[in-house]
């Protein structure tokens, strides 16, 4: 299934290079971006993707909307259903929200998870896989390191899920003990607490943002100390393979988890990830909307 999404996205990537960057696949359909949590990249690339598929798009910032007036979530959704909307793109700070919504809306409505709490961010992981495949080709020989706040990162969870499904040689997670999830050993990854040891000979380095908004207690002594131990610098990157690619789902905190020289350097593909997000989201939307296909609730 992941490979099907990546292959379809490859075709959509061609569309965005044409004079007319639109195809008529979802003409006449209405897509609702339901964002209960701030997002720039994900929301705008979902919006662009929908528009390039010729769909109409509603952007709803839920914090400022009816839920603050006492309406329940399901009542709000029922109203969008009454407006003949066809697809909900859901971002929420509570894990499981997209799944909850999918179980309660009419069956013809597609629901796509655009990130739920610390649980999953499937389309981000897919666009990361797309980026890796475009640059590295096969997944099998690759060693991939994911660095930072693994515990709070839905991106990391979805990436680990995707990478192990695609059969990469090795997935490493690197970070302080306090930012590792308790069940990390069940995910089939190797755990490192030292950045340079973890980066040794890897092909792909994925940096994560330090998510202060999701930390319920002080799990870190300070940003400076974190940067000294886990910040990706040119110096520390020497441990990785010479052609290692550097990824980050954004937004990046310069000087907190990544040095500017690395983020803007020749091996960084951070902005390519953003571009690829459009093609991946076009693929996911057209695949779900076209056939009533259940792409699953994880990745």
């Amino acid at each position, binding site marked *: 299934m992941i490979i099907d999404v990546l292959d379809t996205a490859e*075709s959509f990537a061609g569309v965005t290079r*044409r004079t007319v960057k*639109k195809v008529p*696949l979802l003409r006449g359909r209405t897509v609702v971006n339901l964002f209960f949590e701030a997002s720039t990249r994900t929301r705008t690339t979902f919006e662009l993707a929908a528009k390039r598929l010729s769909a109409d798009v509603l952007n709803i910032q839920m914090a400022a909307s009816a839920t603050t007036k006492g309406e329940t979530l399901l009542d709000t959704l029922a109203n969008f259903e009454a407006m003949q909307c066809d697809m909900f793109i859901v971002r929420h700070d509570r894990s499981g929200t997209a799944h909850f919504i999918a179980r309660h809306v009419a069956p013809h409505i597609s629901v796509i998870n655009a990130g739920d709490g610390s649980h999953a961010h499937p389309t981000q992981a897919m666009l990361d896989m797309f980026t890796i495949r475009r640059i590295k080709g096969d997944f099998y020989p690759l060693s991939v390191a994911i660095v930072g706040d693994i515990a709070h990162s839905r991106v990391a969870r979805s990436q680990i899920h995707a990478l192990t499904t695609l059969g990469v040689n090795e997935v490493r997670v690197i970070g302080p003990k306090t930012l590792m999830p308790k069940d990390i050993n069940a995910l089939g990854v190797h755990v490192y607490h030292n950045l340079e040891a973890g980066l040794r000979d890897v092909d792909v380095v994925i940096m994560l943002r330090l998510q202060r908004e999701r930390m319920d207690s002080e799990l870190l002594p300070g940003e400076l100390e974190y940067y000294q131990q886990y910040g990706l610098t040119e110096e520390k990157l020497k441990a990785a393979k010479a052609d290692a690619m550097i990824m980050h789902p954004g937004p990046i905190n310069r000087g907190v988890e990544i040095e500017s020289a690395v983020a803007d350097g020749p091996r960084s593909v951070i902005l390519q990830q953003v571009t690829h997000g459009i093609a991946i989201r076009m693929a996911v939307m*057209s*695949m779900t909307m076209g056939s009533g296909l259940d792409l699953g609730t994880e990745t």
Partner: protein
Amino acid sequence: MNEQINVDDLIKQLADRTMHFLKNKNIDHPLVVGIHTGGVWVAKKIHHALQLDSPLGQLDISFYRDDFTKIGINPQVKPSHLPFEIDNQHILLVDDVLSTGRTIRAALNELFDYGRPASITLVVLIERDGRELPIQADLAGKHISLAPGQHIKLQGPDSLSLMLS
């Protein structure tokens, strides 16, 4: 249709007739575009026979199909690849079988998202009955009538043959 059709001979004749057609129309530098999958195989051979310098274009019309809501997207969709500007150019659009005309409708829509060609000539290997749209081939290798429910399909890519089912 009992006789065995030699596809290579048929394409050769079709290419000869295409050459005459282009000459009569004073088209010197056509761009050949094949429609995935069978159309690309035929287009390759015609492109070769016409000895053109321009590269071969390929269209996958999956994103333009009118039955998308019924059958969904084909995961085997290939990227369309038109390695040239089509504005003011003469296009030879090539497909294997012209049946309902819906594929050609989709292909025309997609072509116009790349630009405004000077002309489009439709070349098909087999023109069968069953048209549902006002679309006809300019050049066809062979015209055939099939019973309802019968299908004809080009098989390839190594050795091209026609399959009736």
